[in-house]
């Protein structure tokens, strides 16, 4: 039994903890956190309608904005990431160097600073709308992480696939687009799911640009009512429920892919 084959999982940043499918108990950490959070969120307005009812009526607008920023950023980041990843693997030196510099630069600058930079510093040259700046910054940052995921995913496809494609007379780029890339999706879906969760959490940073996301709506409510404890409790619970829910979906996808995968 010494040989327990564990499929390597690509981990790039701190996404939500993916629930371990081995943990089947009802009192798993995930179940306690998820259902605990939901129960508290339901009980609070029932037990003390003032102020929790008001908070719960005011904040949800922000959820839509949070998702808008997250979904748009992740889509653009996937596109940027695909090319960054291909660039990192390119045999053309200059392309390889540009992609690598991009990844290094992004990794070396905090996301909050990137946000400030794109909105305020570059604002001296072109004043972009807040929402656009926020999405550009998130895309720029997460594109680099996605690039690393794509790179690992492409390298995870067995060498023999490329050889088989070349042996049939395909060009390298035909082989990459028709044979290699489609097979990377199976490998990268779980880490991309994780990035989505991480991005959703990081999207709270855009509230600093006065984009009225979930956190910003909370801040707006708290600053007029001075109910900091109550407001931020609700904000935190909503974030927690969303990320836990998404992490369960990612775990489910991962399981499905393992079943449907080859071998």
């Amino acid at each position, binding site marked *: 039994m010494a040989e327990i084959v564990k499929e390597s999982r690509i981990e790039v940043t701190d996404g939500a903890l993916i629930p371990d499918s081995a943990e089947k108990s009802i009192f798993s950490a995930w179940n306690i956190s998820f259902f605990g959070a939901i129960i508290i969120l339901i009980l609070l307005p029932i037990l003390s309608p003032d102020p929790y009812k008001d908070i719960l009526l005011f904040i949800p607008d922000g959820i839509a904005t949070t998702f808008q920023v997250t979904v748009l950023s992740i889509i653009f980041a996937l596109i940027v990431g695909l090319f960054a990843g291909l660039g990192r693997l390119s045999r053309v030196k200059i392309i390889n160097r540009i992609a690598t510099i991009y990844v290094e630069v992004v990794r070396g600058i905090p996301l909050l600073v990137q946000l400030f930079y794109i909105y305020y510093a570059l604002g001296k040259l072109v004043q972009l709308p807040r929402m656009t700046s926020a999405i550009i910054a998130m895309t720029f940052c997460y594109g680099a992480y996605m690039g690393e995921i794509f790179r690992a995913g492409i390298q995870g496809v*067995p060498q*023999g*696939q490329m*050889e*088989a*494609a*070349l*042996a*049939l*007379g*395909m*060009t390298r780029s*035909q082989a990459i687009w*028709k*044979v290699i890339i*489609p*097979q990377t999706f*199976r490998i990268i879906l779980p880490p991309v799911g994780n990035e989505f969760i991480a991005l959703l959490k990081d999207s709270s940073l855009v509230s600093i640009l006065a984009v009225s996301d979930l956190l910003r709506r909370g801040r707006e409510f708290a600053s007029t009512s001075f109910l900091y404890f109550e407001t931020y409790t609700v904000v935190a619970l909503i974030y927690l429920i969303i990320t836990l829910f998404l992490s369960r979906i990612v775990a489910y996808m991962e399981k499905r892919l393992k079943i449907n*995968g*080859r*071998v």
Partner: protein
Amino acid sequence: MAEYRIQIKDACKNYGEVKALKNANLNIEAGEVVLVIGPSGSGKSTMLRCVNKLETLSSGDIFVDGDCVTDPKSDIRKIREEVGMVFQNFNLFSHLTALRNITLALTTVKNTPKEEADEIGKKLLARVGLADKEKSYPGQLSGGQQQRVAIARALAMNPRVMLFDEPTSALDPEMIKEVLDVMLDLAKEGMTMMVVSHEMGFAKAAADRVVFMDEGEIIEIGTPTEVFDSPKEVRTKTFLEHIL
């Protein structure tokens, strides 16, 4: 020069200090079936992989139908279309169905219309005895079935030469026969084949010549009877004693 389907001239391949192939010379005529045997690391797979330039020779030349594979100016993709290859680990495209595995190169490389490609694919699947598996993914097929699909995939390009790199080594014993039967049929139909394999049964039934390699060199070439029953070289004799 074009009288040979494959011509290997003074082929050398070095990996750093290691000489994987030393001055190999081999001519294969159209319709010939040549089996390449030898201990592991003897350079037989390297030689095979140089024929369609999956590996590049360090020196020497290889011609396929008179076209120089080793000339950097020649269009290697055109040559590869003429040279089908079957791998030890099948290397089927795991995200595609058996049928699509066969038709992908037709539609992308030869721009064959999809309906026509599907027709060719279905015919080939039937030919390798897998007509009912067109919608199966590689993961749903046994090793033997996968290798038969891989042969069909290579045949779809209508090659003049087929290269087999240890096609049965990764298979369970009970599946070897179904793959060899397909290869025997091909040989009977007059396909030019270069096969790296130790399948003696196949050699005796279908091979015109057997090439024995050791330490990157071609040691002996002869008919199966000559090489197996009365090897001239000591190294051939020793090797055959080990595998028989």
